[in-house]
């Protein structure tokens, strides 16, 4: 280790992992044992996790007060099997001392709801049982998904983590009309590529961030995991502060990377160059121009998930379908990401627009993006804002899933085939 390297500034990920592992500083590449500030947990897996702990004679969690649990994957239960699985969840949580549970009715997809409910602030380390926890980077918290390893971390209160390298993405300029944060997020993971993103943090900063609200920031950090990133991060700023102030009592500072930190890679993206784009099967980074898909028939449209059922998505979709009718061959599903989003959409009259257009609006849940609500059958073709288009994700592995922003998905619902909002008038003519 050279003197110069030691003197260099630190990335936000380094600062967070140093504090969480009780160290002054940590170096990129070293393995640390860190203790999280929050455990983000979901009702789907917790019954099994509690059973596994009990089977091994573990009757206490190390930090039950740090656990926040959400009902999200199947809300309400669709099957007797799921109802039975969750039947004893409340008692299990009581037995293990967990008191923070957002049950059916107060719920939402965990990765958005936990931020809305004020549990996450800049500089935190969060461990999550679910994959798209990278979303929590929207407020400058490091949130690597650890999935099944959560069982051990709950018992021991810590986990081994490698201090990751950081890719710094500087955003400049402004998005053009009908271009959404989803397009930007897809563009970033595809242009960087999985080889570059794997095991690294994608950190967003730059002058354009002032125009990207919390919905957009959640999407940027959410999609990062699809490129294999360990976490997504947005540099906390005045917008972060304004968002969090009314939501949380937890003290925080706007912790950031130092300008002279050791970034593995730096890239600058001018937002005005981004266009609406579609990810074709079989992977989220398989981007193709909408024009090349013109005429591709679809029979299901999905606005929802932790990647795309936020207010910005519902507003964009409603703007497209307002005073129009969903194509007779298409089922259009709208699933607000959280109860907060659902209520806000109701107040704005968006749910009425969807119902009038012939769309189905359902309770917040992971639902279609987990393939347990409105599953696709063999040969079905869906376009939507789900997290991934890996075959089988939304039901049959013989169905095709296209990913797009909410406006493109909504326009496709009207046309019955993939099309952009701009070309909707001519398609319908």
């Amino acid at each position, binding site marked *: 280790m050279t003197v110069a390297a030691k003197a260099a500034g630190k990335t936000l990920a380094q600062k967070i992992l140093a504090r969480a592992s009780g160290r002054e500083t940590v170096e990129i590449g070293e393995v640390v044992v860190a203790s999280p500030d929050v455990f983000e947990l979901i009702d789907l897996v917790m019954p099994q996790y509690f059973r596994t702990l009990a089977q091994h004679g573990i009757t206490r969690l190390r930090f039950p007060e740090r656990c926040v649990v959400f009902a999200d994957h199947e809300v309400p239960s669709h099957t007797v099997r799921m109802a039975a699985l969750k039947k004893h969840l409340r008692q299990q949580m009581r037995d293990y001392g967990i008191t923070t549970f957002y049950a059916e009715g107060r719920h939402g997809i965990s990765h958005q709801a936990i931020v809305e409910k004020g549990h996450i602030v800049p500089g935190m380390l969060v461990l999550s049982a679910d*994959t798209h926890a990278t979303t929590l980077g929207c407020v400058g918290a490091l949130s690597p998904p650890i*999935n099944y390893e959560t*069982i051990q971390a709950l018992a021991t209160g810590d986990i081994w983590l490698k201090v990751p390298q950081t890719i710094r993405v500087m955003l400049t300029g402004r998005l053009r009309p009908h271009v959404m944060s989803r397009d930007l997020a897809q563009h970033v993971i595809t242009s960087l590529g999985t080889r570059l993103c794997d095991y690294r943090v994608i950190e967003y900063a730059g002058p354009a961030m002032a125009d990207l609200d919390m919905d957009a920031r959640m999407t940027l950090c959410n999609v990062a995991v699809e490129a294999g990133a360990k976490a997504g991060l947005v540099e906390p700023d005045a917008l972060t502060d304004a968002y969090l102030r009314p939501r949380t009592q937890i003290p925080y500072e706007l912790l950031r990377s130092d300008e002279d930190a050791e970034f593995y890679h730096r890239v600058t993206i001018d937002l005005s160059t981004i266009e609406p784009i579609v990810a074709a099967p079989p992977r989220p980074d398989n981007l193709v121009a909408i024009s090349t898909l013109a005429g591709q028939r679809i029979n299901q449209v999905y606005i929802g998930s932790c990647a795309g059922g936020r207010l910005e998505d519902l507003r964009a979709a409603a703007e497209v379908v307002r005073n129009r009718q969903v194509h007779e061959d298409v089922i259009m599903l709208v699933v607000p990401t959280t109860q907060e989003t659902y209520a806000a959409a109701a107040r704005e009259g968006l749910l009425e627009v969807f119902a009038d257009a012939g769309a189905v609006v359902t309770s917040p849940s992971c639902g279609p993006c987990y393939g347990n609500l409105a599953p696709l059958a063999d040969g079905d073709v869906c376009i939507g804002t789900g997290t991934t288009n890996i075959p089988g994700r939304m039901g049959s592995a013989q169905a095709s899933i296209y990913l797009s922003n909410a406006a493109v998905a909504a326009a496709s619902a009207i046309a019955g085939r993939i099309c952009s909002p701009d070309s909707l008038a001519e398609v319908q003519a």
Partner: protein
Amino acid sequence: MNWCWQGKAWVFGDDIPNDDGIMPLMMTRQQEYDPAILATHCFEQIDPLFAANARPRDVVVAGRNFGYGNPHIQGFLGLKGKGVGLVVESMGRGPMRACVNAGVPVLQVEGVSGFCQTGDLLEVDFETGSLHNQTTGAVRQAEPMPAVMREIVAAGGGIAHMVQRLRGSQTDD
């Protein structure tokens, strides 16, 4: 633990997803965690012969980006249930952690595609990173498995490792 494995190679290509590749996503939806049950479903959508014919200490050899997508544990618990090891060209962070957590030994070996065919007899040393194709005589040297990962696999997986740690700390008290 004996890190030097001998067994038959089961060769898969690039971009085998975790869900509906290694394991039907239905097993996750049903919240199945029993390695013995999951073992009977390994690769069933892409190689229906695997689950019936793979034997303990056989080695799955796969290409780039193995197990991509959501790192649901069921796929790797299935491999653990079969008792097989894993050699891949590359594998993302999520599936790598899930693999080690399930207790499956793994090596990442650049250019391993083409090193062997299904049915070749392999010798793989996960501790030293050496590979020997006993059918063709080819040899290869790769990075060994990091110690932090071997410790977890040697314990039998993340949960067994946790139990060891907690018992150790109780003894220390």
